[in-house]
């Protein structure tokens, strides 16, 4: 039986239209190749739009002492040295130019008194470094890129979901998916594919991530034969909303602490002073007076522990709640109302003010917020070449959250938006160059395409009656309960068994209705990638027998030097997921020196 589908052909297709995808598409188009940009939501709605705090870039507008070496050092230390050093170097070096480029494309960042781009403090950054627009930086960034992109001759395929990447022997040949509006199938033939699909946060119950974050890119890359690295490292943002239940998980920007807010337990204590690890002791204030002075005078004071990297703060909050010192709804208190004037708060944090007022009935200029950890970001992703972003599959490139390596075991706030710009551009550039070199026509195996299409239609005709939403909810509960901030082998193994059970049930999902904009069907199809990435995270978490960054093991609580030299690699061979340990690229001596000198 032949299955109908439409066909589009481009030199490069970019999957995902958040910051990385848009930037990649713009760059590829600038190289003169034909570009298709495929995104599963409407243009301008991707997750980047939710980013709040800012873009980390050592512009040196506020603190002239800042430069790429300091940013590089902060990034590596924030990632507990597990980062791909070359990615971290390129990121720190190129971020300022990428921010200035956004300004030339019309972005309006908040200004310094001299009319330059203002920069704000954020966790783990030595200097005020984040270019921002109040607390809606992501919106400014995505709109700027979106309105720049629509004039570059890029073909945009909105509300189009890619299900599989296509390969022919070694090389990538395109992708196959469906239009959400009609349910009709669509084949993209392409010489090069850029994955910019974001993250996997929808495998957790309490998450800041939207419905889109189902790990499509991670899973599709794995199935196409690409390596994933660092999948055990999941970032729990320390400050998500906890009350009321319907808003649980929505992020409260780190900018609240960057702008002077502080965390307190139910005794009123600023507890972060008790949680400064040895690794950060020398550079972190040990008393409240110094911490408060640091906001104004960074030369003579050390950073407040409220702004330790996110993994540290999330673990501290977790421990306070466990010890019975939490807030009424199972979080801790975040206070800015007693520390900064109302006008300042409303100017700097307008969305936070609005969000708490509207959704929680809390006036943050007068009352404290209740906050707790929420799944926010995955450090792990497609293993890429640092300079070109090419994966281990020729013609397949990855940038942004779907790529691994830059952030090591923990990402610093603000380093995501800069990551999207720096590596989005590189992905677009090198994908275009690859496509130009390749030449010839792309031929796709139609039998392979038709087999995929038939598989995607199965949920309509199965004789069973599993509910796709119920399976997704059970997966989220499983991950929330068993693959937590604090992990242990028995629970991880238990999670694996549960995931296996859910995989069987997912094959029995039956959906009602037709193919036109049917979220039940869409959810049924998303289960495959959700379950795959959940398995990858769990397997990698079992493998890494130490605690580091976004991976904390109750049964292996120490950070081990030996593990600091290795990535956990996940790949699929003959239909099964395999785990390997492989050495990290070694940092050259001149960069190593940055960590030996006492700052």
């Amino acid at each position, binding site marked *: 039986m032949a299955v109908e589908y439409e066909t589009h052909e481009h030199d490069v297709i970019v999957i995902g239209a958040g910051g990385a995808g848009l930037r990649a598409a713009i760059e590829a188009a600038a190289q003169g190749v034909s570009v298709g940009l495929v995104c599963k939501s409407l243009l301008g709605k991707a997750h980047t739009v939710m980013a709040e705090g800012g873009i980390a870039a050592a512009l040196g507008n506020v603190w002239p002492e800042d430069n790429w070496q300091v940013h590089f050092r902060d990034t590596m230390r924030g990632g507990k040295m597990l980062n791909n050093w070359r990615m971290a170097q390129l990121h720190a070096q190129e971020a300022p130019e990428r921010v200035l480029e956004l300004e030339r494309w019309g972005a309006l960042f908040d200004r310094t008194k001299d009319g330059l781009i203002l920069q704000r403090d954020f966790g783990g950054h030595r200097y005020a470094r984040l270019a921002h627009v109040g607390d*809606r930086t992501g919106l400014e960034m995505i709109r700027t890129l979106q309105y720049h992109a629509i004039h570059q001759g890029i073909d945009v395929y909105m509300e189009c979901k890619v299900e599989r990447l296509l390969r022919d022997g070694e090389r990538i040949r395109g992708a196959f998916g469906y239009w959400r509006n009609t349910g009709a199938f669509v084949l993209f033939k392409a010489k090069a594919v850029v994955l910019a699909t974001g993250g996997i946060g929808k495998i957790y119950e309490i998450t800041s991530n939207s419905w889109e974050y189902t790990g499509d890119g991670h899973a599709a890359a794995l199935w196409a034969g690409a390596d994933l690295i660092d999948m055990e490292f999941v970032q729990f943002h320390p400050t998500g909303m906890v009350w009321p239940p319907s808003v649980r998980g929505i992020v409260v920007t780190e900018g609240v602490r960057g702008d002077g807010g502080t965390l307190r337990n139910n005794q009123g204590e600023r507890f972060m002073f008790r949680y400064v690890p040895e690794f950060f002791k020398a550079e972190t204030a040990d008393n409240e007076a110094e911490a408060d002075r640091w906001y104004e005078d960074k030369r003579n004071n050390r950073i407040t522990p409220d702004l330790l990297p996110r993994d540290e703060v999330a673990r501290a909050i977790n421990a306070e709640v466990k010890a019975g010192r939490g807030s009424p709804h199972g979080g801790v208190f975040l206070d800015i109302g007693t520390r900064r004037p109302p006008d300042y708060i409303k100017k700097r944090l307008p969305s936070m003010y609005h969000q708490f007022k509207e*959704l929680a009935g809390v006036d943050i200029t007068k009352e404290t917020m209740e906050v707790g950890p929420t799944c926010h970001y995955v450090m792990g992703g497609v293993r890429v070449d640092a300079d070109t972003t090419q994966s281990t599959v020729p013609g397949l490139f990855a940038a942004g959250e779907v790529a691994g390596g830059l952030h090591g075991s923990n990402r610093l706030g603000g380093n995501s938006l800069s990551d999207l710009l720096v590596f989005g551009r590189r992905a677009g550039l090198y994908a275009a160059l690859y496509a130009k070199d390749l030449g010839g026509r792309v031929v796709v195996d139609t039998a392979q395409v038709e087999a995929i299409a038939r598989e995607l239609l199965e949920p309509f005709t199965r004789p069973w009656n599993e509910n796709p*939403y119920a399976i997704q909810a059970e997966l989220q509960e499983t991950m929330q309960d068993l693959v937590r901030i604090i992990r242990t082998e028995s629970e991880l193994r238990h999670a694996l068994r549960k995931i296996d059970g859910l995989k069987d049930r997912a094959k029995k999902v039956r959906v009602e209705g037709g193919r036109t904009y049917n979220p039940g069907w869409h959810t049924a199809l998303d289960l495959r990638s959700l379950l795959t990435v959940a398995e990858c995270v769990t397997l990698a978490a079992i493998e890494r027998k130490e605690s580091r960054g976004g991976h904390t093991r109750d049964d292996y609580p120490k950070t081990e030097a030996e593990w600091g030299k290795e990535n956990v690699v996940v790949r699929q061979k003959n239909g099964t997921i395999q785990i390997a340990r492989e050495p990290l690229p070694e940092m050259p001596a001149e960069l190593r020196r940055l960590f030996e000198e006492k700052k």
Partner: protein
Amino acid sequence: MPTYTMRVFRGDARRGDFREYHVETAEGMVVLDVIHRIQATQAHDLACRWNCKAGKCGSCSAEINGKPRLMCMTRMDTLAEGAPITVAPIRTFPLIRDLVTDVSYNYEKAKTVPPLRLKPPDPDGRYRMMQEDIDRIQEFHKCIECFLCQDVCHVIRDHDLKRQFAGPRFFIKIAALDMHPLDTRNRTEFAAREAGIGLCNITTCCTEVCPEGIHITDNGIIPMKERRADDYDPIVWLLRKFRGQRPEPA
């Protein structure tokens, strides 16, 4: 926990009507939560758009008890419990299915707006802008493209003048570009001829429904209409270009 009766539109461009669902709610729930609950338990194929669920992405626009709003920012406890609550798709755009409409008109109009044309940098290669000069434009940049202003605008909704009219969303887009300190283009002619700003009769409906509280009419449309009147004087226009002065925001 209060139980609500929800009357949700189900159907497509050809036919459809409101169907009733009874849903138990919990503290703090918003309309979007209720729609998701119906989806997960009673109508798996109920179509709706959403992304951030925090009022930042502008995907979940609908007409709730007849009022254009974001479903994610409408708390159930602000709606009366006794009477049924109706949730309908935004009416101005062609229906795809249930609560999802075809908003491609907006994306087509977006492409027609002439983009930023950058002025040269300062002698040191940098661009400087003072905060007070960009406050007003930053207000326009808050737009989340929920298209509620487009939905409620009479020119589009009742008169269906989509071809010759860009709508309030794009008037503030044009205003933002025209007021941008680094831009060198004049879009007055475009606003009049292509975007049809003359068709707007300033009923302020757009401003009233804006979830971001942008003063679309007062700060965007009216100054642009005034500028258009001024700009018809070619000497004023030339002088302004020559001196590099930008029109003052109201």
